[in-house]
């Protein structure tokens, strides 16, 4: 498993959140999650303009093996979704932390990020579960 980039915060349900310089938050799933799912063939994303709360269901990732719900690591308004995933869902496998991002939020409460795990704590938790 490759290391989680140090600037990310991670939910225990395997979604990462990155606070961008403009105050928005980009969301995706971790390398550990894509590895466990196997080949991703479909991603259902929220719609731009949706308002979602931290911890609620915000989409579905479908791999060749199974469907998994994805949850919002922080709450806010969806301001962009990664449309590339519609035609190339495999990007989630090949580049989970960059081109494989899911959606961007305008966070409603930035302090929600503090409730998430640090990359080290997340990796320790994954190692423990294995």
């Amino acid at each position, binding site marked *: 498993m490759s290391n989680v980039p140090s600037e990310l915060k991670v939910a225990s349900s395997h979604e990462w959140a990155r606070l961008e310089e403009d105050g928005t938050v980009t969301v995706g799933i971790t390398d550990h999650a894509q590895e466990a799912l*196997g*080949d991703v*063939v*479909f991603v259902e994303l929220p719609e731009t303009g949706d308002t979602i709360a931290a911890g609620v269901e915000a989409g579905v990732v479908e791999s*060749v*093996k199974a*469907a998994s719900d994805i949850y919002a690591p922080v709450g806010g308004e969806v301001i962009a979704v990664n449309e590339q995933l*519609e035609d190339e869902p*495999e990007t989630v496998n090949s580049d989970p932390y960059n081109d494989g991002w899911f959606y961007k939020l305008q966070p409603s409460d930035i302090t929600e990020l503090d409730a998430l795990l640090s990359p080290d704590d997340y990796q320790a938790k994954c190692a423990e579960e294995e």
Partner: protein
Amino acid sequence: MTLLTTPLDGLHRELGAKMVPFAGYDMPVQYPMGIIKEHLQTRESAGLFDVSHMGQVLIEGQGAAAMLESLVPVDIESLGIDRQTYALLTNESGGVLDDLIITRWGEDQFFLVVNAACKAQDISHLQEHLTGQVMTVLPDQALLALQGPAAREVMKTLCPEAAQLVFLQGCHSTINGVEVYVTCSGYTGEDGYEISVPGAHADALARSILSFEQVEPIGLGARDSLRLEVGLCLYGHELSTTIDPVQAGLLWSISKARRADGERPGGFPGADIIFNHIENKPALRRVGLSVEGKRPVRDGQLVFNGDGEQVGQICSAGYGASIGRPIAMAYIKRELGEPGTALFVDVRGKQLPVTVTRMPFTPQRYYRG
């Protein structure tokens, strides 16, 4: 429960396989290549599958053919030496206990390969009914499947004799000095072989096969999507004790000689019920479903018509890597089984449009000489 392992367990781990429990065995579901690439590898070149979890059984004794005919609706009497046939073990209600491959090794000697999940039950079923026959279960025998368009080329080097085989033919031979039984068969829809080899030699043989640049190791995940794409049934999905062969679209597996108007009609469990279904068409039939778009459907999801009435249920679903979209098989009401019929699958509350499609989704490419 402790999982059983095959003689290739160490090799799977060395190759970085993701292991999962399957029918009581710890088996590789995929290797680092991933299911989609492994699927394509098998269609485009060749793949090596460990299918040692399947049961291998030898039945010997005078009148073995007639005895087997009392359990399967297949013309075993006229099966040639070193020829094999697909067969269904039927039950009294016309359902299916298991599907298996029967190979005739001698006049009174038959080699059976049965599903891992049904192995114990099949063995007791055979023991109970094959009176006067000697039945030997071969637990120390491994089974490797080499499948794909490059398989024959590889076999030319490994075992020239086996490279001559046509679909559903076998031979006793040796590979690297080890006695094996090779058949031209498999469950991917491709030309290829299954090699029965003593467990102690399986690892060396697998490594030897993998040393060919055309071959990659393939896990159970791709094995499932490959068989689904060519419309082959999997026990526990398309076949069960409550689904009869006619419903399953396997009428071809009931030999002419064993049908109501054949030379040796009936005489297998559930014959009357099955004959009745041949005559009067069962209410359900197995069909292929093409899914519009990329969202996959899953086993067990319900199928509806345009009026929202439930008309069937998915029995197998997966990603058809060679055609690049999700596919499925379903049991639906007979009258809706015509290719092109538009239906819907309920995917967690969403109605996903699907179309009844002629199977196989991709052509079977067996070598028939």
